């Protein structure tokens, strides 16, 4: 028994550790605080922007490391966070609205390493500073919308098939249609079933009613759609904010997580993200008396709503067009009056709906209604959040001609207001309102402090274990220490390589814990070797049996810990996930380094020759 490893195995160990070290290396260089300037509204940053940036910084006496133009963005690097902050302020003041200026952290990785795909670990918000939002989608409204659509669709369908009905109304989770006679009912059922196969039909011949509800699958699909749609829209809005490396992610059935690293101005972020603004166009009801309506006699086909000045307006209930057909919106100015306005583009469906709706109404006033949903902070009995809708007429204009897919709305009081409105409309209308149910802001100074404390903890823990192992197991202890160092390098390397992995403070704690536990496999092996030696085995036999018999124990023990870590990962959120990631990676790498890695070193040192005594 000579304890020799085939050459390929040793090479494999060396190779893996080397690769790990290579990809861990970018973390050594760290990140530079930077400011990123990108154009909004289709404007791209160019060389003149770069010059403007340099001028501004020179004027404000701000020193920077480098300023460069890449991918239509200007990136300025600074040596510290304070300078970054002041530069950010003076740049956003001087550049104006056409550009968005965002705080950023840019890897200081050397080029050769970056070209190999080397990037530093992504730092969580608790380490980098920034804002975290958890948003809840108002599913009630989303489902209500779906129900409204059903009603509209059924009506059109029945009319098309010339089936007479008394009424179509919502009822519970579905829609109830009442007919005049049993024949119509039977007809309608067979007609509708053809197109709406994935709905549930229940007829009641006594009441001449047909109840149509969504199947569970359809319900789920509708909810998923609402969530997905909201995520897409929020992502658009985040992009409009110009934040570097934002995260928009689904969580569970009705939650969306948004993380904006480096953002400190939460008020603006929230204004843009949280508002669910949409437009709706209605005809103004001229046939009825406004004053009578204000006094409580609102005609059935109309409703009252205030305009921006608090004056009541009487509008027709029928919606001419909804905001979901808006595909573009840009702030502009009226050529003649130079008043701010918003130009709007509609999609083709919206265009045809709108042109039909306006064709018969030329010369009549049309109102543009702005609707914003907000959470009240109160809750419904079922635990979901209550939302209120604030609606306001932002413009009443006489339709001059048949409107197509391009038109303008006026009535904003300032350019800033028209810009904000355009931004909200352009980013799309949310299908259902969302509420921010959780908000965490971490200051940049706290983030930096957390990094420093975490690093200190890792180093102290690491040093103590190294010393202990060396004293306790002597030369074998040194081998175990090599494995421990390799393990740390591999964890960092893998964390940097996995795109989704983020280092958080609990993640650092996970690494510390792994350092402590990683020696376990080696302790198991070394204690076995000692046992074998005590029983009088030769050193070579002791090594062989030590490794062999500890193997299954190590596997069993680690797999169970891994189960716990994976469950944490599956159900955990944010910091817990961060902890689970480092713990899982740490368990796997520590198994590799302490079983295969140390064996390679032990075999290289002691294998293949006759020895009388082991330094263990």
């Amino acid at each position, binding site marked *: 028994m000579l304890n020799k490893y085939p050459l390929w195995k040793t090479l494999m160990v060396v190779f893996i550790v080397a690769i790990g070290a290579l990809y861990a290396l970018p973390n050594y260089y760290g990140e530079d605080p930077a400011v990123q300037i990108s154009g909004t509204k289709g404007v791209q940053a160019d060389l003149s922007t770069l010059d403007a940036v340099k001028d501004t910084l020179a004027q404000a006496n701000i020193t920077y490391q480098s300023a460069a133009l890449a991918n239509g963005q200007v990136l300025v690097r600074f040596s510290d966070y304070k300078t970054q902050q002041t530069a950010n302020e003076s740049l956003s003041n001087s550049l104006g609205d056409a550009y968005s200026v965002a705080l950023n952290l840019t890897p200081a990785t050397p080029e050769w390493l970056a070209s190999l795909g080397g990037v530093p670990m992504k730092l969580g918000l608790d380490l980098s500073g920034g804002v975290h939002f958890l948003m809840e989608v108002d599913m009630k409204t989303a489902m209500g919308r779906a129900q409204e659509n059903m009603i509209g669709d059924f009506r059109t369908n029945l009319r098309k098939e010339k089936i007479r009905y008394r009424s179509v109304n919502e009822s519970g989770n579905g829609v109830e249609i009442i007919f005049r006679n049993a024949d119509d009912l039977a007809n309608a059922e067979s007609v509708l079933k053809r197109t709406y196969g994935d709905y549930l039909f229940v007829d009641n011949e006594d009441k001449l009613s047909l109840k149509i509800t969504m199947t569970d699958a359809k319900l789920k699909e509708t909810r998923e759609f609402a969530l997905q749609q909201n995520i897409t829209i929020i992502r658009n809005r985040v992009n409009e904010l110009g934040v570097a490396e934002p995260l928009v992610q689904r969580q569970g059935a009705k939650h969306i997580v948004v993380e904006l690293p480096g953002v400190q101005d939460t008020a603006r972020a929230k204004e843009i993200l949280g508002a669910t603004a949409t437009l709706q166009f209605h005809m103004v009801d001229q046939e009825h008396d406004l004053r009578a309506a204000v006094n409580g006699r609102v005609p059935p086909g109309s409703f009252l709503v205030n305009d921006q000045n608090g004056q009541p307006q009487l509008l027709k209930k029928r919606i001419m067009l909804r905001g979901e057909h808006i595909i573009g919106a840009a702030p502009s100015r009226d050529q003649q009056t130079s008043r701010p306005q918003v130009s709007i583009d509609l999609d083709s469906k919206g265009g045809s709906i709108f042109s039909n709706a306006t064709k018969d109404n030329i010369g009549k006033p049309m109102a543009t209604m702005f609707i914003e949903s907000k959470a009240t902070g109160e809750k419904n009995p079922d635990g979901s959040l209550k939302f209120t809708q604030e609606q306001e007429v932002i413009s009443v204009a006489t339709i001059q001609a048949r409107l197509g897919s391009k038109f303008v709305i006026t009535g904003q009081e300032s350019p800033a207001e028209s810009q904000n409105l355009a931004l909200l409309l352009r980013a799309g209308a949310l299908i259902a309102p969302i509420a921010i*149910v959780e908000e965490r802001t971490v200051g940049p100074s706290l983030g930096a402090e957390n990094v420093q404390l975490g690093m200190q903890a890792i180093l*102290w*823990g690491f040093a103590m274990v190294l010393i202990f192992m060396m004293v306790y197991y002597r030369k074998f202890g040194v081998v175990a220490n090599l494995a421990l160092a390799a393990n740390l390098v591999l964890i960092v390397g893998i964390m940097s390589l996995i795109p989704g992995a983020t280092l958080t403070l609990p993640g650092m*704690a996970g690494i510390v814990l792994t350092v*402590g536990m990683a020696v376990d496999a080696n302790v198991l092996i070394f204690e076995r070797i000692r046992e074998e030696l005590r029983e009088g085995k030769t050193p070579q036999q002791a090594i062989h049996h030590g490794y062999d018999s500890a193997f299954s124990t190590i596997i069993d*023990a680690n797999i*169970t810990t891994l189960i716990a870590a994976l469950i944490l990962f599956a159900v955990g*959120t944010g*910091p817990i996930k961060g902890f689970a990631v480092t713990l899982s990676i740490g368990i796997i790498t520590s198994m590799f380094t302490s079983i295969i890695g140390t064996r390679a070193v032990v075999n290289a040192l002691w294998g293949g020759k006759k020895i009388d005594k082991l330094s263990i």
Partner: protein
Amino acid sequence: MQILKIKENIAFMSQRKLASIFSIILVVVSLTSLATNKLNWGLDFTGGTLLEIGFEQPADLSKIRTVLESGGFADAVVQLFGSSNDVLIRLGQRENVKAEMLGNQILGLLEQGTGQSIDMRRIEFVGANVGDELTEQGGLAMLTALICILVYVAFRFEWRFALGSVTALAHDVILTLGLFSFLGLEFDLTVLAAILAVIGYSLNDTIVVSDRIRENFRKVRKGTPEEIINISLTQTLSRTMITSLTTFLVLLALFFKGGALIHGFSTALLFGIVVGTYSSIYVASTVALALGISKEDLMPEVIEKEGADQEELRM
């Protein structure tokens, strides 16, 4: 170097009645404390607003309290966090008040009231229903972990061991929770993560011991189950101690160097490792023994190939 020089087998199991009584008392005390003191749920679970504020000079807590009280925040909990310049303020869940206003409002109040410029270190706001969901999720995570582990151990070892190790885990979790409720320490998400790590760690320990017991049942020809368990515990004792020691050392580093944000985390783990070490020696084995583990239960079912022994000799 060797810390423990063990010549004789230690009769661990002869003390198992005492250990059982000890454990049961601790569990009962923990459960009582959990029932009466409850857990001091952190913001993650209860919802509310939390602000960490850095002052230029050491903060005057009583002044901050009066300023907040006069500003209409009588329920604010104000305490130092980390250093004497850093203050943590906690507010309960509020109806009809927007969180964004709250943070700015308080910062404004304090800046005016104390005349110091303020460094906002963090602001957290969590809605109550998120908290409810988290509590549910956290409990579910713990339960799922226990069940998965139970299944794995039952599959790899034997149901008596599985029950033994899960009892040990439940024991550790209850005691750690008990400690948190007894001392009134805040229980937040990181502490929950720590408890799950305790589960992982304690299990690690228990598996190593069970593994040795299984091996010895197969290897040692004579001896009662009690004796075999004693042999196994003695053999694994130095490993158990050393691993616990190294883990304990690095956790101490985390406790003292890692900053105030993860104090709860390191406290839970430090305590959990001590109980976990104890429970892997006493609780798991005692339960397996009480359930009547025997040699026959652990003999491998597969009949070894003829000549397998010879193979071994040649190596």
